[in-house]
């Protein structure tokens, strides 16, 4: 496998990073992408995450040359590829539907793009063989794609793109069609494969778990814009907006205003300490796992009193929904089974959290 790595590095530009500047795109008067700026580092596993219709697939297609942007420019390495058609770009795509050529065998599917590379027959066959073994499909080269399972077709699509030794591999919702267990296995495998070949991966998904578990960095998209770019931990712990906070994981949001001593006050609920507060109001964002559960009123620190509305046992964790007077929605707290043991509906509890766990985000109203 070290061979593959060496080759792909030789084939790639000296710097295969991607630089996207001011990309906009409209379809029939609807703005799908608005002034997108993005930098992706060489060898990075980068995800475009967002709900359907947020423009992420269009951006991927523009990267691959399958759509033309209305304005803006794209560079891959030191080359401006904005006006290069798909067939001339150093990118290859793994399509959502896999897009197998139904009339060709697995091996011929993988070899499809190599015709242009003017290789000898033996060299070409060896490459195909090596790729198939890289994606664990040894010996299936003579099969027809229709005889393969979804997961296997997915691997053929991967091999077919990787054999081209692209500078950038584009993956469009590539795992969406697989069932959950296979998807989880493929996530790990894809990540390992990416490290092995050292190619820049741009991965489009609407599944936040998928993006979180695989990516070096993620761009969260919504309404044709990039809402936030960051490492998975940054996005989770320090969301920049309500949209990002709500899209990634579950979160509790409490409206607050600044008050004396740099503290934050929620009307009728009390004042809280928050390390990220800077004299402004907004939304206090608390992840479910930030909370501690107390059955007696704690002496000090941030706390909210409420009544248990529901306890959900999920094996490794329990989820508590707590009604707090003055808040419209119940707060969600996750805790260990032991912490929730014995709690039932209408029991009085105090939810506590430390000043560093809460995060103040701007209110969008």
């Amino acid at each position, binding site marked *: 496998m070290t061979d593959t790595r060496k080759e792909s590095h030789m084939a790639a530009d000296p710097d295969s990073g991607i630089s996207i500047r001011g990309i906009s795109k409209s379809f029939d008067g609807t703005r799908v992408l608005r002034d997108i700026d993005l930098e992706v580092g060489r060898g990075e596993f980068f995800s475009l995450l967002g709900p359907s219709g947020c423009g992420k697939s269009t951006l991927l297609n523009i990267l691959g040359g*399958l759509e033309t942007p209305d304005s803006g420019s794209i560079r891959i390495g030191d080359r401006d590829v904005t006006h290069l058609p*798909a*067939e*001339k770009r150093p990118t290859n795509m793994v*399509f959502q539907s896999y*897009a197998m*050529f139904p009339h060709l065998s697995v091996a011929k599917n993988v070899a*499809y*793009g190599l015709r242009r590379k003017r290789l000898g027959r033996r060299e070409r066959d060896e490459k195909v063989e090596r790729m198939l073994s890289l994606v664990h499909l040894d010996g299936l080269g003579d099969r027809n794609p229709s005889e393969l399972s979804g997961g296997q077709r997915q691997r053929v699509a991967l091999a*077919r793109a990787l054999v081209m030794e692209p500078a950038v591999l584009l993956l469009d919702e590539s795992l969406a069609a697989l069932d959950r267990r296979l998807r989880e296995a493929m996530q790990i495998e894809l990540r390992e494969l990416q490290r092995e070949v050292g190619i820049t991966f741009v991965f489009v998904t609407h599944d936040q778990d998928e993006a979180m578990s695989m990516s070096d960095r993620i761009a969260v998209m919504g309404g044709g814009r990039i809402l936030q770019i960051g490492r998975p931990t940054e996005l989770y712990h320090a969301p920049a907006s309500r949209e990002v906070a709500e899209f990634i994981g579950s979160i509790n949001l409490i409206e607050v205003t600044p008050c004396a001593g740099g503290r934050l006050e929620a009307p009728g609920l009390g004042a809280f300490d928050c390390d990220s507060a800077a004299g402004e109001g907004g939304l206090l964002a608390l992840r479910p796992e930030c909370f501690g559960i107390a059955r007696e009123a704690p002496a000090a620190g941030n706390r909210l009193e409420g009544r248990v509305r529901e306890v959900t046992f999920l094996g490794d964790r329990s989820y508590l929904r707590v009604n707090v007077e003055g808040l419209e929605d119940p707060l969600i707290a996750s805790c260990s089974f032991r912490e929730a043991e014995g709690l039932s509906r209408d029991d009085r509890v105090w939810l506590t959290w430390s000043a560093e766990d809460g995060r103040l985000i701007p209110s969008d109203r």
Partner: protein
Amino acid sequence: MTRSHARKRPVLLTAYAVLFLLFLYVPILLVPAFSFNDGTIVAFPLQGFTTRWYGELSRSPELLAALRHSLVVGACVSVLATGLGTLGAWVVTRYPLPGKAPVTGFIMLPIVAPLVVLAGALFLLVQTVGVGLSLYTVGLGHLIVCLPFAFQVMRSRLESFDDSVLKASRDLGEGRVATFLRVVLPISAPGIISSLLLTFTLSFDEFVLSFFLSSTEVTLPVYIWSQLRFPGRLPVVLALGSLILLASFVLVVLGEVLRRWRTDD
């Protein structure tokens, strides 16, 4: 109970099946039977075995000319109809067009219009324009009738294939022409072959249009019709008919073998 049940049903079913097959094939099998009959009157009882009608075939230049005309017209019409039908089907299945539904409905019109009316109209048109009747006018008539079939066959074939393979081909470095040759053509090949066979057959045994639109160079059905006045010529026509049957049979078997061989691959 079950035994009598199992015995009774097949008897009825078998009888039905046998009658059905007789009804279908006896008229057809009469053609080769009488082509080997040693007598000019086409009636039972058979008079004895002969191959002389087959020998006489090669000495009937007019009949052979008619056959040649039919083959040439059929070949040209099937290729033209399939080519044009494929292009039309491509546009209809790949691009959003205003008024697509009425336009595609309009394409099918020649199929539902009575052939005699169409033939009469074309005859008048050709007379008015003044180009004169020929095999070209016959071909034109056949083309009008064959085009909707070719279009329909190709549309269902092209509709069933996924646009993403075209994108994949371009993504893997092939331009439009190479994508067409390496992806579109092989995927639509079965449709193209069925369209060619269907339109060729339609043209080959079309009578009404050929009758109206031909002059001295006639196609085979028109020639056969003109020969019915001479009962002595009928066995030769039957001999030719048997050969055509045999050729169709070989073609169908060959096509089926090819199809299986491809899917096994």
